[in-house]
């Protein structure tokens, strides 16, 4: 069964990936832009934060720079798409592979350790009523809630509405006088800024930034997004955002259980298969539910 530390660990990683899911919600759901940049912007955020923290910056300031770096990466992808007419998926792949080299350049080597550095978490360890393994959960929950509220308010603002219109129907949006290209650039930048934030926080809680950190971030972010939507119907922006966080946490709890499921005969090497099954189920389940309710309501009628 799950120990207390494993449980808090799942919450912590879930909250970080909740931020990734926010990012993927903006690109994938709001803008309908399949964006693989995240596999590069996640370690980019980690790299920028790590380098600046080691250089003696305030960790929050370093984290802020990581957000800006992520936004720049997202903007590059969107500009490749909007200005140079490169297919969105391809544009994001180009940025992603370029970021691998960029991240190596930023860090100077493949792995930068933060284990003994002052991070955003360090001051919290002195708080008396918090256990060591609870600190990151509390802090990341605060960050996730603030991000959620800011995003929610943004999505309801005029710019947010224009962005949603761009994703829903670009031609109609243009007819209404919305500069859709600018909206896509801003949206994808915002999305990757959130992913950069997640990368920066992850590196600080893990004690290191590593160039290989981004592998599979897009799949896990998507799994969290879709899984969350399966649990909470995303009928409003608020519900959709809450679904992102809940989905990310459920995904992490599922992994934690899978790691403990010796009883079921599951082993470490089965994890990738489990992920694929979870994502498939999460994609299929809402459809099944709609079909079922359709059939039920038809029967009633």
């Amino acid at each position, binding site marked *: 069964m799950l120990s207390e*530390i494993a*449980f808090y660990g799942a919450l912590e990683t879930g909250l970080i990936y909740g931020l990734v899911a926010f990012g993927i919600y903006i690109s994938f759901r709001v803008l309908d832009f399949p964006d693989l940049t995240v596999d590069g912007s996640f370690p980019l955020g980690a790299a920028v934060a790590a380098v600046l923290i080691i250089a003696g910056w305030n960790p929050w300031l370093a984290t802020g720079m990581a957000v800006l770096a992520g936004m720049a990466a997202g903007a590059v992808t969107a500009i490749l798409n909007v200005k140079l007419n490169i297919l969105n998926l391809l544009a994001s792949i180009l940025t992603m592979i370029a970021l691998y080299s960029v991240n190596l350049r930023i860090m100077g080597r493949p792995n930068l350790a933060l284990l003994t550095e002052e991070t955003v978490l360090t001051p919290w360890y002195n708080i008396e009523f918090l256990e060591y393994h609870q600190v990151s959960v509390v802090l990341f929950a605060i960050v996730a809630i603030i991000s959620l509220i800011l995003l929610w308010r943004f999505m309801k603002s005029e710019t947010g509405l224009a962005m949603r219109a761009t994703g829903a129907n670009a031609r109609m949006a243009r007819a209404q006088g919305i500069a859709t290209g600018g909206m896509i650039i801003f949206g994808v930048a915002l999305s990757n800024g959130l992913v950069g934030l997640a990368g920066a926080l*992850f590196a600080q809680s893990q004690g290191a930034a*590593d160039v290989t*950190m981004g592998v599979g971030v897009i799949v896990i972010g998507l799994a969290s997004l879709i899984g969350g939507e399966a649990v909470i119907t995303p009928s409003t922006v608020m519900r959709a955002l809450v679904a992102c966080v809940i989905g990310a946490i459920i995904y992490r709890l599922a*992994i934690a259980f899978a790691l403990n499921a010796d009883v079921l005969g599951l082993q470490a090497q089965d994890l990738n298969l489990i992920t694929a099954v979870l994502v498939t189920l999460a994609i299929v389940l809402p459809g099944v539910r709609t079909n079922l309710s359709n059939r039920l309501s038809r029967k009633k009628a």
Partner: protein
Amino acid sequence: MARKTLRTLLGASLLAAASLVQAEDTRVVAITQIVEHPALDSAHQGVKDELAEHGYIDGENLRLMHESAQGNSAIASQIARKFVGESPDVIVAIATPSAQTVAAAARKIPVVFSAVTDPVAAKLVKSWEAPGANITGVSDMLPIEKHIDLLQRVMPNAKKIGTVYNPGEANAVALIELLEERLNARGLKLIKGAATKTSEVLGAARSLVGKADAIYLTTDNTVISAAEAVVSVGERSNIPVFAADTATVSRGAVAALGFDYYKHGRQTGAMVVRILEGAETATMPAETMEELDLFVNPAAGERMGLTLSEDLIKDAKEVVNSDK
């Protein structure tokens, strides 16, 4: 229905907070590995075999846990939390990313790392000699000093040592810097040829002709992929080529003093055993590989104008005679 599932899930995880109760004479060792990969897998096997040899048998008086993160750092983090939560006697962490995530999660549990090249740079230990906390282990850093010893044993008059390396490979650059420092300390000079791609290795090797008395290759991935190019230059210009890994000897290098990752795992396992028997991690120096295997290739030596001495060949674990 979905909300009910969620509630059950959360409830179950809260209930699970109670940790497992262990039988008193059962020791628990947890092994976490960043990814499955032949070298890392043999290290894992080595740890298991060494434990078994010292009477720690999985399922009898030992509970051995093993998880691989399959290259995913978020899963590595969860594996670390899982292991810390079960408070085993020792956590073994294979490769740098795994070791760092365990270090971030474990406060008091002894951690032994394996296949970490530079534990000081990775901030796992304060210094090689005195780790200072709950972490120590075995590094797979090249035994550069012993390699230079071998080079000097074979070619006592060599003064200028050439090498080919990829300036874009972080590990390679770190090794080259170390090599230069150690060579300089002995009054030897390092002549560098840079190759950023395998196709540039031949040109870089040629640039050493007339400048170097011998060539030594580290474990630089780019260069080792094209080791034959360096060997061909060595044969044509009578510059003996030495390597850091034994596999390159059968590809035409004269000699190498290398280690295999299975033995690396055995050495890691030996540290685990000492901790299980009461040793303190804080005072256990981080180790490098002790058991090295000498591979020689006398035929390759002849082609590079070098006759290997009888006693060197006698010392070799393996004598390769590659003929072309």
